């Protein structure tokens, strides 16, 4: 997690605030270590290394997290797929990189399919060598929720955990006023498009501006559709407010993967407040006048 991450806590004194913040940060680091693709000893790396081989035993936290991911896979009709990380090998979001064609994508698409992953209550097995599990689509949001939970259990009532825009708010400022959360302008860095008042709950944003390639005036972003291998179109960004960051993050990611009309329909069906910027720049503010 290389972006700006912060924990803000209101507490009776500075040392109390520091120790609460430390608790939250420790929990974030724990989850990062446990599910990072970049660490050879993480749960994810062990599962990926055993692809095509024997099932890997996982603990309850991992099993329940994968249950959640399974629910997202179902609700998104297969678009939210944690095995789609292999597309990374064809899509490099760096200057000078080219748009992959069908020849590069086809072998990768053959290694994608959450429905093929074999699970029992305490094991996971990727049936094909080359298949990969990637927690990047929900790991950060889970870390936010866990950090917020440890803060709440430690007695914090007014705090915010923010991991690069995916955040959870425990309660308003001590004077009762809500935290004002800026929605990043999808096309202008350092500019906020709107300031949303949030007293509790979580906010997560999915956007096409974090990593992308631009060719012929068309933006190809890092949110990739596992069925075609191509980037999602229709939104510049989607921000959702939900009781947990996991739900907010999945909701916004699934909206982007569904495209404009189906995505908006999906967001409406959730009946959660949301803020979306469409591909053509139109803003849909359903944050205050929500259902």
């Amino acid at each position, binding site marked *: 997690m290389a972006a700006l991450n912060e924990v803000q806590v209101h507490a009776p004194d500075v040392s109390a605030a520091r120790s609460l913040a430390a608790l939250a940060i420790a929990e974030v680091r724990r989850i990062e270590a446990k599910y990072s693709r970049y660490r050879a000893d993480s749960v994810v790396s062990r599962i990926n290394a055993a692809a095509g081989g024997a099932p890997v035993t996982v603990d309850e*936290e991992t099993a*329940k*997290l994968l*249950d*959640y991911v*399974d*629910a*997202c896979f*179902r*609700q998104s*009709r297969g678009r939210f797929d944690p095995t789609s990380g292999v597309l990374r090998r064809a899509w490099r979001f760096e200057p000078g990189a080219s748009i992959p064609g069908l020849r590069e994508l086809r072998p990768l698409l053959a290694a994608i399919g959450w429905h093929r992953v074999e699970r029992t209550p305490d094991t996971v097995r990727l049936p094909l060598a080359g298949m990969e599990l990637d927690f990047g689509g929900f790991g950060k949001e*889970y870390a936010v*929720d*866990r950090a*917020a*939970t440890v803060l*709440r*259990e430690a007695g914090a009532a007014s705090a915010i955990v923010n991991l690069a825009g995916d955040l*959870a*708010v*425990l309660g308003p400022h001590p004077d009762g006023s809500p935290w004002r959360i800026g929605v990043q302008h999808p096309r202008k860095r350092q500019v906020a498009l709107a300031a949303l008042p*949030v*007293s*509790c*709950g*979580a906010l997560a944003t999915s956007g096409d501006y974090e990593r992308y390639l631009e060719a012929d005036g068309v933006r190809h972003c890092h949110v990739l559709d596992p069925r075609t291998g191509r980037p999602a179109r229709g939104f510049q960004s989607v921000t959702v*407010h*939900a*009781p*947990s960051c*996991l*739900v907010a993050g*999945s*909701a916004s990611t699934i909206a982007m993967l*569904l495209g404009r009309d*189906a995505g908006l*329909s*999906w967001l409406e*069906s*959730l*009946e*959660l*407040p949301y803020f979306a910027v469409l591909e053509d720049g139109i803003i849909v503010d359903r*944050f*205050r006048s*929500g*259902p």
Partner: protein
Amino acid sequence: MAATEDAEEGRRPRAPLAALTQAALALPIVLASARAGAAQVGEVGFAALGYKERGLIKVTEPVLWGRLQVDDVWEFEASGALDIVTGASPELVTNLPGTPVQSVTGASINDRRRTAQLRAKRRFGDFSLSVSRAVSNEEDYHSHAFAIQGEADLDQHRTTLAIGLGKSNDRVGSSIDPALDERRDTREYLAGVTQVLSPLAVVQSTLTVTRGKGWFNDPYKSTLTFYPDEILPVLFADRRPDHRNAVAWLTRYRRHFPGASGTLQADYRLFRDDWGIRAHTLELAWQQDLGERWSIRPALRYYTQGAADFYSPVVPRPRPEVLSSDQRLGAFGGLSPSLRLVLRLENGLTVEGTAGYVHDAASLRLGGGGSEAFTTLRAVYGILSLSRAF
């Protein structure tokens, strides 16, 4: 590929948030309760009505209601009301003073009416079906009603079609005549369409056909007529046809004006029945936002009705088969201004106060020709309503 995608979209389950939340709850995380903007599960409410007619009737009516949504698929509604009517009701129309007038016999009434309603509604994707049951009981009147209604959302919820069937079985008695025990059975048929016209406007039009058979007479009313050429007057007890078929056509229009932060609400109802009554109801209201929590709604309602064929304040000669001098079947018009104030709080509490004035008179009838025996009605009412969404 596009066609199959669309087909898949249409079959997406109706409870995605519930599915995700349930899976998230299994994890060791504590879900915050999001703001009031998130999905509601239900509401409970209480209202009280006070109504006073000039010197005549006073009604207080506490109403309790509740609504509960289960699983995003089922919705249950229940409500109960208690009417407490005190005062006196006009029972006799006599022309002894020369021209026909209503007279109250002096007996005061203290009536209690209990009503209860239950409704269950189930969603099947874009369709929904609801069944309801209502009962109403007072000392001299008992009613059971049953209804079933179906709705279909078309064109991505821009058009909604509704069809309904209802059946009502009433038993009429009399507190002054214990031997009276008559039935009245009614069937109702409803068809309606709601159409979104633009992001700012929506219209609904509903047609209801009612067919009733049975006892429609009012057991407490009669007409006493003196003729200049006869010594003895004629007393005719209220007697109405044994059937009543009616059509009501209600159209409602809502248009929001974002610049003014207000909404125009217009309702029009056309009514005709085979008793010869033609009536129009028009209500215009403007609901104005005053900040985030308050809104105010001034409204004006106009009502006009023509008399029933068998309405007459005097008994004609020769004596007819059916006759009623109940001025509610006469020709008159009514103007009713009202004002409502609404307070909505973030925690889901809503407080609503409505005050209104009712003025019914023969002179207000559209096009003139109001019944000359019509006694002008002047009444005020106040309603206070509280509800809590959760």
